[in-house]
Structure formats: structure tokens, C-alpha cells
């Protein structure tokens, strides 16, 4: 099998200089010809196992770049969707209504999600003030969530959420993530938006999904330009 030296170094997660030295010293079953390395794949894999290295033909490199990349918040909101007129008069009923709006959940997962959401609310309210709450499960859900998503719910009636500023909540952002990393990233971006008064005022106008996404996109561009 023939690959460039760079590619072999990437697959073995090795420094290029180290790889070239090992080839020169004959410590790795690869022969060099020009800038190409000739090797036998099973042989190299066996060697990698013996050296406690990983040999991966990975495309994972691209995925990790996408995470935390541009327009993450917008993408997540698009995934989750935006709903108006969600009913309910207490935290429990509102959350129950929200869980039903989450796309692609089995009844069991939905039940578990609800329990987790309530568990989180019991710790301390997710009402962050200015009439907005960001409910999320206490632990990332094991299954059912493959991509990060935010479900935006505009409530029919403002509900007392025991927020930090005691204002009744009228907008909910239900935050669902496969991993803690995504969760922190999204939460940080969302809270940046909510710090801007103009954004909160905009929310009070009950915008439709298109308007909301446009606005979020603008805010997110601002975040990225600041390099946060």
C-alpha cells in the first residue's frame, strides 16, 4: 500500500519528524520512496498494536472541526424548531408540554427527559431572568439525541418559574445535547444573546421561526467576530 508520509503520520498520530527518523532507523515497517511510504497495512497495524499506538483510517478529524464551529446555535435552533402558544400554568405542566414538542422521541425517552428536566429544576430554577428560562436535563441523555438541538417555546401565558428576578417566564429554550461539551458551548452562546437587551426585547415581540433564526444568526456572527 502506498500513501504519502504526511498521511501515514496523521494516521499513526505521529510527528512527521519522528516518523521520518523511525523510517531511516528502520524501526517501523514502512519504506520511503520520494515522499511516499510503502507499507503492508496489516503489518503496520500489527506493529501499531505492539507499540500501543492507534492506527486509524479516520474521518473523525472533520467532525471535531464542525463541533464548536460556526453557526452552531442557529443550527441547533433549526433542528429543534420554534413553537408558539405552548400551554400550561405551572413549571410541571409547561415542561410536560415542551417535552411533547421535541421531535423524534420515543415515549420512554420522553418520560425520562421529563424526569431529568424536573430533577434539574429542583436543584435551582433555570429561569435566568428577564422572562426567559433555559430548561435542560440534569445529565446528558443517553439515547434519543444525536445532534444538539434547542426547542424554542413561546408560552401562552407567562408562568412563575421561580426565576432569579421573580419575573414570570414567557419564553423557554429547551436545551438538549449529546455531550457536555456541546451543552456548555451552546449555553454560553445563548446566554451571550440573552445578555443583550435588544435581543430580549425582540423575543417579547413573539417573532416567527424565520425572523428568530435571522436574528440569532446575526447575534452569532457578532460572537464569532469577537472570537469568544
Amino acid at each position, binding site marked *: 500500500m502506498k500513501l504519502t508520509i504526511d498521511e501515514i503520520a496523521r494516521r499513526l498520530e505521529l*510527528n512527521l519528524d519522528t516518523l521520518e527518523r523511525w523510517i531511516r*532507523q528502520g524501526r517501523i515497517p514502512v519504506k520511503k520512496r520520494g515522499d511516499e511510504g510503502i507499507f*503492508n497495512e496489516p*503489518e503496520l497495524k500489527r506493529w501499531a498494536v505492539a507499540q500501543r499506538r492507534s492506527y486509524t483510517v479516520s474521518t473523525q478529524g472533520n467532525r471535531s472541526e464542525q463541533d464548536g464551529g460556526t453557526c452552531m446555535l442557529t443550527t441547533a435552533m433549526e433542528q429543534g424548531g420554534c413553537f408558539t402558544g405552548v400551554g400550561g400554568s405551572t413549571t410541571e405542566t409547561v415542561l410536560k408540554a415542551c417535552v411533547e414538542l421535541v421531535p423524534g422521541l420515543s415515549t420512554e425517552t420522553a418520560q425520562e427527559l421529563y424526569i431529568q428536566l424536573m430533577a434539574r429544576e429542583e436543584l435551582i430554577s433555570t429561569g435566568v431572568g428577564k422572562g426567559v428560562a433555559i430548561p435542560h436535563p440534569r445529565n446528558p441523555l443517553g439515547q434519543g439525541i444525536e445532534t444538539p438541538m434547542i426547542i424554542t417555546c413561546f408560552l401562552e401565558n407567562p408562568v412563575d418559574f421561580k426565576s432569579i428576578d421573580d419575573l414570570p417566564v414567557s419564553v423557554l429554550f429547551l436545551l438538549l445535547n449529546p455531550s457536555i461539551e456541546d451543552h456548555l458551548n451552546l449555553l454560553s452562546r445563548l446566554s451571550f444573546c440573552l445578555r443583550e437587551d435588544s435581543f430580549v426585547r425582540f423575543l417579547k415581540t413573539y417573532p416567527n421561526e424565520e425572523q428568530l433564526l435571522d436574528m440569532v444568526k446575526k447575534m452569532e456572527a457578532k460572537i464569532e467576530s469577537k472570537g469568544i
Partner: protein
Amino acid sequence: MKKLISWRYPARLPFFRMDDRLLLISIGVIVGICSGLAAIGLNRSLIFMLEGLHHLRHLWWAFLLPAAGAMASSIFLEKIMKEGAGHGVPEVIYSVSRYGGLLRFRSSFSRLISACLTIGSGGSAGPEAPVVMSGAAIGSTIARFFYLNDRQRTTLVGCGAAGAIAGIFNAPLTGIIFTMEIILGEWSMVNIIPIAVAAVSGAEISRILQGNSIVFESSGFHITGVDLFASLGLAVVASFASVLLTRTLRRMHGVSSKVKVPLWVRAGIGGCAVGLLGFVVPEAMGEGYHSIHAMIQGVFKGGMGIAAIAFLAKILATSLTLGWGGSGGIFAPCLVIGSFAGLAYHRFVLFAFPSAMLVNEGCFALLGMAGMMSGILQAPLTGIFLILEITGSYEVMLPLIIVSAISTTITHYFEPASFYHKDLKERGELLRPGTDSRVLADISIREVIERDCIAVSPHTLLREFLYTVKRSTRNYFPVEDEETGRFLGMIRLEHIRPYLFNSVMYDTVFVEQIMDANPETVRYDDNLSEVLETMDAKRLFSMPVVSNDRFVGMVSKATLLDKYRDELNVQTSQAF
């Protein structure tokens, strides 16, 4: 055309690419034969020179002969070949540990010629080390010819050394063990087999051309318990002799380097002195195998006093020859000195206890040789097998082991490094595979550098700097001049942590004011072991790498541990 190229790239053939053992064995045969031939060539030309100069020996100006020989050899090495004097074995060991056994082609004959001039004219030195050097250079040259990699080349260098020793002594086992113990310092299956094959072919070529003869034929000895007991004392004498020889050689080097004359004149002075000494004690001249023969056969005439004087004279002659710039090895003189020591000891014991039932003196001469070899080389196995093979007397095995082991131990107490490794060890360049110094020597700064640091300008406000901190994954920030890109200093998060939470300082403090302007830095070509020493001394975990006044990256202990383990794994694992 393609066929023509591919035979010079045997390592690229699919058959050999993954498992090169067969390739190494077949090239090892070639190397062994070539170095065996080199050994025989030197042997023959030494005999030729000795015979040619024999009728001049009794003339009054014969003492000038060693001088002329030493001068010629020094001029040849220094002016024509442009190589340093000495026997060459440390050079081989150094190149094996540092450059994967890379040796110059000219080394494969230069030492042969210079050693031939020195020894043939009467200088006291041995032909073995020069042959080892040329065998190793032949191995290296052949490996280069076939475009082999460092590991394979190292094995072939070992093959060359083994073939040379095997050829000159007709002793294949000694060749293998000498190479493993002294030259390579590593016993691995991948190496042993090609080296064994090379040793066999080196010995075989010498048998074909010179006949299958044992170098110092000895008659059967009958060892008793008394002899074993007596050999304990001999071991002490032999180790005393090895320490004496090592120290005298060294002292002689010191004295000769103080004399401010050209190297070849210096060699001439040493040669003259050896020649004059030769008038008094003729046994001290040349390689001295003649006298060993006589001693082992038990026909050496002189009494205890003569033997002791010859013993001292040989040490002096060897140091005069080698210390003043002659060319040759220490092997043969060691054997001669050892046998004189054994003989003198035997006569002394008989003189002190006339009723002792000792085996004949030949056996003690033989044991003395073993003790001396093991002491000087710090290699007991080489001593044992060498004596066993060149005398062909297996029945002395027990006292042989005792003398070798004790002599090695006692000598080690006074001279911790062997004669061949001493200089390298003092320079810190004895790098055996799988040791800490070797691992660190192999990894270069370039390989452990981390380039994910974000540079800041000195005029950045602390507030702006905080955004950089947010973006970065590292705790270290180089400060670079905005215009020239010159490296000005480092900011370490751990130093400025208290200020980060003080919002008053955000707009009043510049990066310039909080940076460490004089950090310890590393250059590209620094030695990793030195870098680690600095880190330990200053309690640092990472240091910036600066090249041409520019920041290039960081070297940190954490990454180094990663690379260190990889390297250790790769170096110590058997080849794939």
C-alpha cells in the same frame, strides 16, 4: 534498466520488506568474508614485513625502525587519510550509537595500513582493533551500497567486526561475543543470527586460506583443586596489571600531548623509545605472539625476574607506542602482558611453596591472558571465549571462569569503564540502546515541539489579553514585537492568575508589564538531556523554543513523556 536498479535495493523487494532477516543473513555472509579477508591481508603483510626487516634487527641503528614505522603510520593517517590516531574501536562504538553505524569507506583500509607500518616495524601494538575497525567500515559500506536503513546497517557493522575477529584468531565464537559485548551492547535475536553467520564465514575464509590451525596450540593440562586456589591469586595479579596498563597508557597520553611538536614527530619519538627498550628486552617488540607461543608450550627460558621485567617492559612499550601516536590495538599486547604476568606468578608461587603440586606454567600463562583481557575490556565472556578458542584447551574452563570473573570485578572497582568505552563515557556519549541517554539523544527538539501557542504583542491591554486567554488551550503566551516579530518574553498564566480577577487592572496594565522578560529558552539544536536538566534545576514544566530571536513553540515535560515512552517502546521491542 529497472532490473539493474532493483538489485541494489534488495530491501525494497516485497519478500524482504517485512522480514529482513534472510536479507541480513545473506549480506552478513558477504561482510564476514570481506572482513575475514581484511584480517588475513593484515596478518600476511605483517609476516612479510617482519621477515623483510628481520636481517636489520641486529644492526646498531635498528632502534630507528619503530620510529620510522610510527612516523610513517602517523603521517599516513593524519595527512593522507585525515583520520585521528588510535585503534578505532571507540569510533566504531560511537558511530553505532549515534549515527546508526555510519563509517567512512576509507576507514576500511586506513587502519590496516597504518597498523601494519607500526607493528611491522617493531612497535608494540595489536593488529586486532584495526581489523575490527576495517571490518566494521566494510559492513557499513556494504550496507550503504544496498541502501539499508540504520538498524540493518548497525547489524552489518557488527557482522564486520565479528568476521574480523573470527578471521584473525580463527575463533568464530569470540567474534560473536566480542561484537555483542563491546561493539553493540545489546543481545537481540535479530542481531545475533546474522552476526553468527558472518563470524562463521570470516573464520571459514581464514581456514581456507591459512589452514585450520589453533593459534596457540597447547598440550593437555590436568587441573586440580590447588590450581583453582592458586588462580584466585592470579586474578588479583591480572587485575592489578590491567589497572596498571590502563593508567600508564593514559598517563603517557597526557605526557605526549604536552610536547609541542607535530604529531608525526611525536610518533617518531615514541618509536625511538620503543626501539631502545627493544635492545634490552626484545620480547617487548611487535605484537609478541612469538613469546606467547613459547610460554604456553612451557619453553620460555627466563626465570621469575626476567618474566617480571618483560611484563613491565611490555606495558611500557605498549604505552610508548600507542600513547605517542602509533597506530594499533590493545588486544595483542594484553595477551602478551597477561601471559607474562601468569608466568611470573607461577614462578613466584613455586619459589614460595616449592612443594606445591601446580599444573605446568603454560596453563598459568593462559589464565593470565584471560584475566588481563577481561579486566581491560570489562567483558568476562569475551575473555573466556577468546582464550578457550585460541588455545583449544577446554579443560582449563573452571579456573578460566574464576580468573575472568574476579579480574573483571576487581578492575571494575578501580576503572569502572572498559578501555574501549572510557573516552566515550567521559564525554557522555556511550549510548547503549534502550537506555535513558540513548532515548533522549535520539529524540530531537523538533519532534517534541508544540506549536499551538498564541502570540501577543507587548502593547496589548490586560483586557484584550483576556480574550486571547479565552481562545487559547495553553497556559503559556509568547510575547512578540509587533513589527519585527522578535521574541520578547513569556507570560505564564500561573504567574498572573491573581490579576486576572481584578477588573481595575484590566485597562491599566499592559502585557509588557506582566511578562517574564528573561525566560529560560531552548534552541533547535539543544540536547534534550540538557533541556531536561535545566527544567529540573529551575522547576519548570515547559520552556519556549527560540530560533533566530523568534518564538517557534514550547517544549513541555508532558509531551516529552509521551514521546519518551514511544521511543523506548520502539527501541526495546524486537524488530517487527
